[in-house]
């Protein structure tokens, strides 16, 4: 472990998620009774230390957004703990909940749906401030918002415009300015660039990196492929069907992925440094099972190239297999 990594390991945890579950009830039948549940998040655990970026990666529908929204309490999690600065926030209500939201903000996935079409950009960005600081208003507030807009790379006249007048990348910058307005400690960035043109993606990623240093931010950075998180993360968590499969430092994940699912994902990432070397791409068979009816035992066993008999019976728990590298797979039990 390098010195910097050691330092990071010693710094305190800002966020700790323990066995988080979010099951959406499925209603049906004549009396609208609950007849089942979509297990969108089914026992997710990870932690994020102050100042670091945890990349959360997984295929579409594996429960990444649901995890992010549960942490922010935009959803009420079915079970589990979310410790923010050591305080469990899953049961908070009223004023305490509103207070905690000042410290955790979100950048949303869809730049088109995440901005109110009826609001001026200036209103969008000043609204969080107005929500919490009644005393800040008028020219002072406007100047503050203008600052934020310039900081995220928007022209000042953006203040008086409406979302429909901007491109996807610019809209995402507006969303970032809104998330920054309260000077939060943690930002959950839910696939902030997946809806953008490739040419614009890196600009927005760079912006997020700059802001992290400038505002002392901690990121939970959600993405659906490993190539985007590579430039963003210190550590990476791999999700599959509502479960965390592996969490480790970025370097370990890329150098020596331990979980079969991570191995498959890594093999799909084009790697410039390994050109010429023979690399086998692991192609997964079959489809992702439905979260309404997940497989027994290991959620990945229906597609795992290394599956054993045991895998359909026992659900593997996340275990520290190597220092700092946690894996949920029976191969390492």
């Amino acid at each position, binding site marked *: 472990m390098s010195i910097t990594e050691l330092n990071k390991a010693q710094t305190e945890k800002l966020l700790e998620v323990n066995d988080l579950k979010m099951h959406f009830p499925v209603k049906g039948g004549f009396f609208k009774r609950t007849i089942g549940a979509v297990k969108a998040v089914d026992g997710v655990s990870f932690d994020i230390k102050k100042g670091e970026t945890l990349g959360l990666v997984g295929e579409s529908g594996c429960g990444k957004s649901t995890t992010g929204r549960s942490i*922010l309490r935009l959803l009420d999690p079915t079970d589990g703990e979310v410790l923010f600065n050591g305080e469990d926030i899953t049961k908070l209500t009223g004023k305490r909940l509103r207070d905690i939201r000042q410290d955790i903000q979100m950048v*949303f996935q869809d730049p*088109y749906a995440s901005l109110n*079409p009826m609001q001026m950009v200036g209103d969008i960005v000043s609204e969080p401030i107005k929500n919490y600081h009644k005393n800040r208003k008028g020219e002072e507030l406007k100047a503050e918002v203008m600052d934020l807009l310039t900081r995220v790379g928007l022209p000042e*006249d953006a203040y*008086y*415009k409406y979302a429909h007048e901007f491109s996807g990348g610019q809209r995402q910058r507006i969303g970032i300015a809104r998330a920054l307005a309260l000077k939060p400690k943690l930002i959950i960035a839910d696939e902030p660039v997946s809806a953008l043109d490739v040419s614009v993606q890196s600009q927005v990623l760079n912006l997020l990196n700059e802001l992290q240093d400038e505002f002392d931010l901690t990121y939970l950075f959600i993405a659906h492929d490993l190539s985007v998180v590579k430039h963003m993360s210190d550590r990476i968590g791999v999700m599959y069907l509502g479960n965390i499969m592996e969490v480790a430092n970025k370097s370990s994940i890329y150098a020596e992925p331990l979980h079969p699912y991570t191995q498959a994902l890594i093999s799909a990432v084009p790697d410039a440094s390994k050109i010429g070397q023979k690399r086998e791409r692991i192609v997964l068979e079959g489809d992702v099972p439905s979260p309404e009816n997940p497989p027994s035992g290991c959620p990945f066993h229906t597609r795992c190239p290394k599956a054993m008999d045991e895998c359909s019976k026992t659900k593997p728990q996340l275990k520290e297999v190597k220092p700092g590298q946690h894996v949920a797979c029976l191969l390492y039990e």
Partner: protein
Amino acid sequence: MEVVPNKDPQLKTTKPPKSMSPWAMARRKFMKNKLAMISLVYLIILAILSFLAPYITTVDISRVNIGQMKLPPSSEHWFGTDTSGRDVFVRLLYGGRVSLFVGISCTMIILFLGVIVGAIAGFFGGIVDSMLMRFTDFVLNFPFLVFVIVLNAILFGKVGGVGVLIGVISLLGWGGVARLVRSKILSEKENEYVLAATSIGGRPNKVIMKHLLPNVLTTVIVQATILFANMIVAESALSYLGFGVPQEVPSWGNMLSASQQPEVLQDMPWIWVPPAIILVFTILAINFIGEGVKDAFNPKSFR
């Protein structure tokens, strides 16, 4: 060296920023819709004339004038007189007062009740939603006509004026709006900007008022025009049948009911044709306005 045309720099900076709110865009699009604009002008003129009727005519419309019964149109009585000797044109204006007033009042109250119930049910969901919607279904399934007729019969003579009619129609009529607003809120709620509004510390009432309702408002406005037309028709139909506004109060429906006499229907078209035509034109105009609003707010233009 290239000659650069001498552009006035002032010209560029003083030009107002070309930025339009979705409302402004919709307004501009609506103004370009000729049919809708003509309809709007017609309605406004009609409303002004009706509401100013007592000030622009001196004719007493309630007094029966035996000497001037059933007169055909003339320069003195533009649309002739009715079977009681009252001036048809003047009654038409007074009738518009009542019909439009009943229509607007009912529409307002229905929108108010429907939007509140629908917004609360749609936003909070769960048990609040189930209970409010059961109640809404109950109101929707109420036999409207029977209730109006019975209530009118009971209250007849005890409570005067058009208030009873407005109250009854409104209390039984909000169900459709509630359902519409609820389903619209449910679909609008899925948009991330609503989640964002909560995540930046907005309380539920603010999220509803500031974010959901403005985006649902377009649907509500279109619905309002349909309602307004329907309410005018309802008033006329009930009055025609004798269950609407009291007989002595002029309304288009009451005026139309004169045609129930075969003699009037056959030989005195000037008594019942004017209210019929004005009713049809008004309904058409409201519908054209509704269509215009719907076009103008085509959401594709601001997403």
